[in-house]
């Protein structure tokens, strides 16, 4: 009874094993279906060197340098590679690794923000948790208020109403720096609903897990997920 909890094997893999199957599967599918996005990579948690042994490895999924531009309409437009130069005439070097996610409807005065996303497994809540941070082209970190301004309208409203329990600034579990965290308290309820809705799943449940989770969480911070990632075997 109670909440959905991912089976023990899954959680063991996400924390303790070599790049976990579900994280790898997620990264591969992402790459396949989002050629214009940078790929997700698996980052080993180094912490103090003593924790890095051959056998077990903690880590997290990382997607960095995603460029998000606030659009006038709140649609998540398809991402376009290479058009970053339209908005960053002065910062040629920053366009190389950045990928434009949203296109603005022709407003040249828009300031592009860059996001780093880390998906880190929470041993307490037994779900992945999204951490992210944002910064300007000059490297200056963005405060929560400024990040709010780039979120989809729904998220901004929820954030306003429940300041302390939705997206908060917290310390990154490994990096000892302030990041933003999307609270997992409701996550496992969502996941339960999602898995109940999927009647027959041919693919291994683990592979589907991260994809499904991200389809719910991604739009909150403006990262859409192509429908192909959910469909294809």
């Amino acid at each position, binding site marked *: 009874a109670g909440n959905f909890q991912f089976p023990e094997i899954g959680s*063991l893999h996400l924390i*303790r*094993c070599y790049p976990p199957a579900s994280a790898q599967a997620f990264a591969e599918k992402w790459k396949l279906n989002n050629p214009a996005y940078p790929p997700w990579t698996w980052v080993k948690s180094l912490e103090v060197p003593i924790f890095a*042994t051959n056998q077990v490895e903690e880590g997290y999924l990382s997607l960095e340098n995603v460029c998000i531009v606030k659009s006038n309409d709140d649609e998540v437009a398809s991402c376009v590679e290479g058009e970053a130069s339209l908005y960053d005439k002065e910062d040629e070097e920053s366009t190389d690794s950045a990928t434009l996610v949203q296109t603005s409807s022709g407003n040249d005065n828009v300031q592009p923000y860059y996001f780093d996303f880390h998906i880190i497994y929470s041993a307490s809540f037994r779900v992945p948790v999204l951490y992210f941070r944002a910064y300007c082209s000059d490297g200056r970190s963005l405060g929560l208020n400024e990040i709010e301004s780039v979120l989809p309208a729904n998220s901004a409203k929820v954030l306003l109403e429940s300041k302390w329990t939705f997206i908060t600034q917290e310390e990154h579990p490994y990096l000892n720096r302030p990041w933003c965290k999307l609270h997992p308290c409701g996550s496992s309820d969502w996941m339960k609903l999602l898995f109940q809705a999927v009647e027959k799943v041919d693919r291994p449940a683990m592979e589907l897990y991260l994809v499904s989770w991200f389809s719910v969480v991604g739009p909150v911070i403006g990262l859409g997920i192509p429908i192909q990632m959910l469909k294809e075997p």
Partner: protein
Amino acid sequence: MKEAQEFVWMGAIPLQIHLHESEVTTVPPPPPALILAPRIGYLPLLLPLIKPYFSSTLPPGVDTVWFEYKGLPLKWYIPTGVLFDLLCAEPERPWNLTIHFRGYPSHLLIPCEGEDSVKWNFINSLKEADYIINGNCKNVMHMSQSDQLELWNSVVNANLEAFIRSSSKLKSGTIEDDYASKSSLSSQKSQKMIGEADTSVQTKTGKVPVRLYVWNVSEDFGDMEDAPPIDSWDRISYVNRPLEIHREEGKCFTLHDAIKTLLPELFGKKRKPKGEGNISQPLETGSTADDDPEIKLLRIQGIEPKLETPISWVANHLRHPENFLHVCVYIKVPSAKSL
């Protein structure tokens, strides 16, 4: 149980708080503030007591308060007693801290907007502990706003009686054979001595909310006084993982077992890579391989419990108000294992 709670709640650290010299605008500089800080409290909550000492000497501007010990900015959401146990290898009384009212290091510390920030951090930790123990946050979520506020205020004031009253509405339970939290913190009836060997034939699993602060000491030192100061949070490994207990008949899961379970990378036998949730299996105590790391010091609530103490006793009696057990541990890893 009540005596242990009183011991924990009455614990306090004498602080001697100096204003950072860059913020002193008067001659002579103000004397330091002498404050007795509750162990279970948080440094930002002391501001109303501290500010009067320094308000007349501050430069103009908006206050953004932060604390520092020997150059290390202090994480405000770690309880005061835990900071002291961790950062003062040799306890320093009074504990000399520096306070800043300007120049918040926002690249290092998450923002603190006064008491509200500390309160919400506390409530979120309470939810996390609730989730770990019960598998959901219902207990906390179902508390009314005013009940939550009452609970929080009892922590701010270090008022145990008020806390017991408020937390009766929050069934946190104690670690027993079964984890259906029937007993509240205020209940005296379920006081079966948990340290004793269980006569009931059961292997039950339970989870304990634990926050472990590990300092890997690379050099040897004789006295704690000679321990090098911690100059960066990168030297501390923070482990926020629930402790899973598998209780087996006749066996006692000790504090030592708990540490080894939480730090499998450091202790005991190598495991087969293909596990099935085996990380929680208690390792054999008494494994004294030469290459095992050495626990030089282990502190909880300012005391150094014997490693053979049953973990259930430790968790039930020494936890913080948000139901986490905070453990500071100094470990010396033999050079063969470090990089």
